[in-house]
């Protein structure tokens, strides 16, 4: 069973639909006792980093994710959920993340050529830079759907794919059982579904 962590940010309808579409049994829950039973965890998220991190801590779900990840349960963070896996974010101040991956989240503003629009919104091509089970069915140049204004940097040890937007943007990360997508696989057509399927089918050592 895949546990989708419901901590009150964003809409989980499409994410759950897409996981079920690729054959997963899905349980959406805010209850650590339920999520503890999950073979794998998905950490979704949209909105501001600080709010989301506060909500995770207020519900104690931050500790659950950290504990399960340390036990070897595969964890997939999506969009803001991926950003939360890192040590910290500089979105509206400085906020502590879960610290499961080395690196930090910084604004695109000032880092991109001035003519590029922010947020980075739309379909962009994935460029794999390291091997990962998530990339099992992904070819270089396959497009996925992004919507974000901040990106992860300093994450060379977990980086597995980038997308070119003036600079190489961190698109996918993986270190052992901790994984993340900056884009929305649940909105990325067949490529996104293939990535979710690879996550669901990967042999976790949970």
């Amino acid at each position: 069973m895949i546990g989708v962590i419901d901590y009150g940010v964003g809409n989980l309808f499409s994410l759950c639909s897409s996981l079920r579409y690729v054959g997963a049994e899905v349980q959406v829950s805010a209850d650590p006792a339920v999520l503890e039973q999950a073979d794998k965890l998905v950490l979704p998220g949209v909105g501001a980093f600080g709010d989301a991190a506060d909500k995770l801590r207020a519900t104690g779900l931050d500790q659950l994710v950290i504990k399960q990840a340390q036990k070897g349960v595969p964890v997939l963070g999506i969009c803001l959920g991926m950003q939360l896996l890192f040590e910290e974010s500089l979105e509206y101040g400085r906020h502590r993340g879960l610290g499961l991956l080395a690196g930090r989240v910084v604004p695109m503003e000032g880092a991109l050529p001035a003519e590029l629009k922010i947020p980075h919104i739309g379909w962009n091509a994935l460029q794999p830079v390291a091997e990962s089970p998530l990339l099992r069915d992904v070819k270089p140049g396959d497009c996925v759907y992004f919507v974000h204004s901040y990106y992860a940097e300093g994450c060379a040890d977990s980086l597995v794919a980038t997308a070119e937007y003036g600079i190489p943007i961190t698109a996918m990360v993986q270190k052992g059982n901790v994984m993340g997508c900056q884009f929305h696989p649940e909105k990325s057509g067949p490529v996104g579904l293939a990535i979710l399927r690879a996550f669901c089918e990967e042999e976790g050592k949970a």
Partner: protein
Amino acid sequence: MITKRIIPCLDVRDGRVVKGVNFQGLSDVSDPVELARYYSESGADELVFYDITASAEGRKLFTDILCRVAQTIFIPLTVGGGVNTLEDFDRVLKCGADKVSVNSGAIRDPELIRRAAKRYGNQCVVLSADIKRVNGRFQVFAKGGREDTGIEAIGWLRRGVELGAGEVVVNSIDTDGVKQGFDLELLDEVCRAVPVPVIASGGAGSQQDFVELFKKVPSVDAGLAASVFHFGEIAIPDLKQTLWENDIIVRR
């Protein structure tokens, strides 16, 4: 690089797609779910569902269908039509829509944009405007393009973006239905005025019109059309091939 998006727009009335004809391999061309799947498999980058229902029952049918579409296809969905309140946003977002397009509702109450952007994020709020030249000036029309508001269009879009709209759809009434190409003059002005993605609508008649759009106004992000796709005059895979051959980057 970000690809240029191709977006078919489907008008839905009482749970059925209006003006859906001429599709090979589709048994029911007015079934929104089947048509959405067809477009998604053809390579559409996003779908816009426009609810033109007047009745409450029709509205319920619309959200039921939206839920079914969102369980079937996994590309961004934008919903418009009759969006006047935050409750309207909530109703369609719960069914799997990613973005909500506001038009007349935002003209009546511009603060709707700010409230929605604050609650759901700028990326969720699309400001759509029907624009027409009146005495040499671009003006915003309301109620499906029937009513001249007297509001100057470029300033309105700029204000909408300042209030929190994350994208704008520019529908030119002057070129809509004429099939002689997009309104490049208007689109160029809008692109210079707002820092967010601009979606061009109104006037597509041929593949070449899309090539011209992206060549002559390179900062336009997407081309939206309805009838040329619905009537099979342009097949999306062919269009993407043509764009690709003209060095316009698209998702394939």
